[in-house]
């Protein structure tokens, strides 16, 4: 029974495989398959790289990092499980050479370093400034010596044997630092690195609170668990990494992957519309075939089986091309990612193909289910009349919804973003439905008594309102996506130049102790430089939420969760800061005595699913402190850019025994830049970021975003074109018939052409209205919260883009309608 059906399906598939409706279906499915398979292959490649990286770059079996030095007792306890412990210290500092300066990540090591792996260094740079491959394993900087990484040597234009200054002390550059075996813990930190002897650190007199203590521990597997358990109880604020835990970059990549996956829900929505449109043609063909089978005494089942296998063969037919293309893309992406993940190697993991292909097969079947539902409950007579039952249409819409929910379920981890994307999408869809139905109804009413091409077009479109509004939806969503991605790209670029114009200053002090802040103020006073903002804070490590450990409380990875795994800055203020506004709850009264209150940034609340009334437990300095959430706040533009996620009443300070720091910003004139080195000589641990550094970081981000967005835009454009062609093909039979009938009235082809232009122009206009309003809302919702950009739409730019979209859509629509415009009266006769 099944054998002959499969054979027949195969035969029918081969006969139809180059028909427009089959080619378009394969393209729609193929584009999404390429997208998801490439994502999956790349992801697997990166996860494998991170795993291997973790094994080779941890430099220990367990690493404990803490802002405070462990006590002798704590070391003793650790020693009971550890084979060996190596203590290193890290801090951010500024080194200077004459009037040049550079922020570095400084590591102080003792003779017992490294614990595992090799420390490699060299003493010569080649002519291109790269370190010579000849290097010496192990050994550490001697007293009074410093090793700098090659980038730093180039940045300061210093050579081996020359001196640089760290604070007010000179160090001799004795080697070029090539590789530290515990480099992994720097994650995607791009700070330039330097290394000194541990004994030199004490002579530099850095404040204790700026030093990060790192303990590299050698231990066997059972003792690793003991250490983890001990740390959870005794050092909850410390960060711990071990060979069985995740790579610090793993979560980062997972978030990137989920973000791309989630935004692809819009691509799926477009594909759903495309497939839905194409299914009109498929329904007609399969209905006719099934009716013919039934007229020859067959049951409905073979028709359904053949229809399913035909789809399956089409799906399978596109797989070789999909695999080839996605493999090529995967290779290119991995090559491109080498800037971020050094030493990543391309490899092809066949097991990574199963899940995306299986998920997509199910999703496509759900999208295509309309075809099978259309005849499964019908009689032969109904099939021949091509009249699918209404309830089945609803079921097929429901299937699409299930498919889209599946995609969201598999890929969403950022509920705020999911919600925003869905809201913007829904708004765009609803706008287009309302505008298309409303305007067609009103315009058709107004022009009902009029004659001519425009009233006729309006009338025809209103009569075909369902198929027309689906067409508009497809085109509109494509425009929405294109417009949004283009706008985002443009605004990212604009934000870069905007930074140079901001009045927040061109130097941001990110961490200054009170003594350092005094020095800054004094220095600024002497040079007549005004400090633009000055905000105090303490470092606080979030440990628990409502007595649940943070690691357990966080169920999904998100930007907020990742940041909260490290100490964050806790600000205090009596009143709501000028650049914040309260979203929910109530800010405390000035001079309140109830110090255990906290206001949390709204997006953090959403990401972590926090509620007003929840209690947050922090490790602040040596103490634990609990705060109840009484308000949530969000950033508002103006009044400076320094804002904090967590804010408490000033009364809390009396109960917190932690080092206090400040953030500030100032505007330096050209001659002042060289004089900054004076400040850093006195206070090498003072952390400042210059606008130039910020710009460099943004440029890198922008470059990455531009590439990703361009690739994404290409896929959107391709899908948009397919959707437009699919919507034209779905109406082609009727349009052809209509055009032929018009020709039979003695009218010319030009009339048909004009009608088609009017229809496409109207379709494009409504689609554009939806796209613009959707883009506007998406900008309002997503810009600040996801990309930290203030949204100020440029309506002129939007209008210009809109005109281009209108022209392109109309032109593409006309090109796709060429077939229906080339019809003749003879074809009407041929249908007799």
């Amino acid at each position, binding site marked *: 029974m099944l054998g002959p059906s499969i054979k027949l399906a195969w035969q029918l598939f081969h006969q139809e495989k180059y028909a427009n409706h089959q080619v378009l279906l394969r393209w729609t499915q193929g584009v999404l398959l390429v997208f998801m398979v490439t994502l999956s292959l790349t992801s697997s490649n990166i996860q494998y790289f991170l795993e291997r990286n973790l094994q080779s770059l941890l430099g220990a079996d367990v690493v404990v990092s803490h802002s405070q030095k462990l006590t002798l007792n704590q070391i003793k306890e650790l020693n009971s499980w550890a084979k060996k412990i190596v203590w290193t210290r890290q801090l951010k500092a500024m080194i200077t050479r004459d009037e040049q300066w550079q922020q570095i990540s400084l590591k102080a090591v003792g003779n017992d370093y490294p614990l595992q792996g090799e420390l490699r260094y060299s003493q010569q740079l080649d002519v291109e400034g790269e370190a010579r491959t000849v290097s010496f394993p192990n050994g550490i900087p001697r007293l009074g010596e410093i090793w700098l990484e090659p980038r730093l040597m180039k940045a300061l234009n210093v050579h081996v044997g020359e001196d640089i200054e760290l604070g007010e002390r000179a160090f001799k550059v004795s080697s070029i630092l090539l590789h530290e075996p515990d480099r992994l813990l720097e994650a995607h930190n791009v700070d330039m690195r330097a290394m000194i002897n541990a004994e030199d650190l004490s002579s530099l007199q850095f404040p204790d609170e700026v030093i990060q203590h790192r303990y590299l521990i050698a231990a066997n597997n059972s003792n690793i668990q003991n250490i983890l358990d001990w740390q959870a109880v005794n050092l909850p604020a410390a960060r711990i990494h071990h060979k069985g835990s995740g790579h610090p970059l793993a979560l980062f990549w997972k978030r990137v992957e989920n973000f791309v996956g989630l935004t692809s829900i819009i691509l799926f929505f477009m594909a759903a519309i495309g497939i839905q449109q194409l299914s009109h043609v498929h329904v007609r063909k399969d209905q006719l075939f099934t009716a013919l089978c039934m007229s020859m005494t067959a049951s409905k089942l073979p028709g359904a089986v053949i229809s399913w296998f035909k789809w399956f063969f089409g799906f399978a037919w596109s797989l070789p091309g999909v695999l080839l293309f996605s493999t090529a893309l995967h290779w290119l992406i991995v090559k491109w990612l080498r800037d971020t993940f050094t030493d990543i190697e391309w490899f092809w993991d066949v097991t990574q193909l199963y899940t995306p292909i299986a998920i997509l097969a199910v999703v496509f079947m759900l999208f295509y289910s309309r075809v099978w539902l259309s005849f499964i409950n019908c009689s032969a007579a109904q099939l021949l009349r091509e009249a699918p039952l209404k309830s089945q249409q609803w079921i097929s819409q429901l299937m699409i919804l299930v498919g889209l929910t599946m995609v969201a379920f598999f890929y969403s981890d950022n509920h705020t973003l999911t919600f925003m994307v869905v809201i913007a999408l829904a708004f765009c869809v609803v706008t287009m439905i309302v505008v298309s139905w409303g305007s067609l109804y009103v315009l058709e009413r107004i022009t009902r008594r009029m*004659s001519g091409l425009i009233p006729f077009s309006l*009338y025809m479109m209103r*009569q075909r309102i369902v198929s027309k509004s689906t067409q508009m939806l497809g085109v509109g969503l494509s425009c929405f996506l294109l417009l949004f991605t283009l706008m985002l790209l443009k605004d990212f670029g604009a934000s870069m130049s905007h930074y140079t114009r901001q009045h927040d200053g061109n130097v941001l002090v990110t961490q200054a102790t009170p003594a350092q802040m005094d020095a800054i103020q004094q220095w600024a006073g002497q040079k007549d430089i005004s400090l633009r903002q000055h905000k105090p804070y303490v470092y606080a490590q979030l440990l628990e939420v409502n007595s649940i450990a943070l690691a357990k409380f966080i169920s999904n990875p998100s930007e907020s969760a990742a940041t909260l795994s490290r100490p964050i800055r806790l600000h205090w203020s009596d009143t709501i800061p000028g650049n914040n506004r309260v979203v929910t709850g109530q800010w405390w009264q000035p001079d309140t005595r109830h110090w255990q209150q906290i206001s949390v940034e709204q997006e953090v609340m959403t990401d972590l699913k926090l509620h007003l009334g929840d209690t947050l437990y922090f490790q602040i300095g040596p103490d634990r402190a609990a705060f109840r959430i009484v308000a949530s706040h969000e950033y508002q533009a103006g009044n400076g850019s320094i804002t904090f996620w967590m804010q408490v009443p000033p009364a809390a300070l009396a109960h917190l025994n932690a080092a206090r720091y400040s953030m500030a910003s100032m505007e330096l004139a050209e001659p002042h830049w060289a004089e900054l080195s004076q400040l850093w000589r006195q206070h090498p641990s003072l952390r400042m970021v210059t606008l130039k550094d910020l710009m460099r970081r943004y440029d890198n981000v922008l470059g990455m975003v531009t590439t990703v967005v361009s690739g994404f835009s290409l896929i959107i454009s391709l899908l948009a074109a397919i959707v437009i062609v699919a919507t034209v093909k779905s109406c082609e039979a*009727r349009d052809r018939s209509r055009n032929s009938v018009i020709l039979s*009235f*003695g009218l010319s082809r030009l009339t048909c052409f004009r009608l088609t232009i009017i229809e496409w122009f109207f379709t494009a206009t409504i689609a554009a209205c939806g796209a613009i309003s959707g883009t506007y809302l998406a900008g309002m919702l997503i810009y600040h919260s996801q990309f930290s950009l203030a949204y100020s739409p440029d309506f002129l730019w939007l209008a210009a883009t809109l005109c281009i979209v209108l022209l392109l859509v109309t032109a593409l629509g006309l090109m796709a309608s060429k077939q229906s415009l080339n019809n003749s009266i*003879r074809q*009407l*006769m041929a249908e*007799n």
Partner: protein
Amino acid sequence: MNSQIQLINVSQQFSDQGATVHLFSNLNLVIQQGRSYAITGPSGSGKSSLLMIMAGLEQPHAGRLSYFTSNTIAPLDSLRRSTGFVFQQFHLLPELSALHNVALPLKLRGDKYAEEKAEVWLAKVGLANRMNHKPTTLSGGEQQRVALARALVFEPKYIFADEPTGNLDANSAHDVADLLFSCCEEQNAALVVVTHCQKLARRAQRVFNLEFGHCGVQRDDARRGALC
């Protein structure tokens, strides 16, 4: 002054998989406004091709088509504007009501009284009470009557009908044929019917039989003697 269409030494052929198929050759025909014609012949003899050439919609392989109005040769474009078609499958637009289907050619021409005129024509073909019905709710005979009203509403000088009763039962076919001939006569329009039905063909004033590439006149009520 009545117009006429002249086909002079017209031949038609087409290629099929490299082979040339000759449909007919050296046909000489005259179609005069106000008269009725029928073209009969077996399937594949080229009846539809002849119809298309007569309507100025296809170019003959050889020979010439001329359109005379007021005794002068007029451009073929003006012939196109003066022709209407009736099809076997009706080809009404399913989205439109009967009234709007009939008003369609007038609306496209910018006629302000399109719907009023359509109402008159629907009444004329006996469908005054079905004006607001969609084609799917009408019977075959009713649909063809709507199609007939639609073909005549803009007062063409020539009506070309391709098997207009081929899809109808005997009674409906009879009614539709009555209407077709009477309305064309009333409008002073030429009617050219392609049909396999001898009964329908006999109602025409002139009947051409197209067979084996030649066209013979079977019957001519106006005068004896073949023109082709």
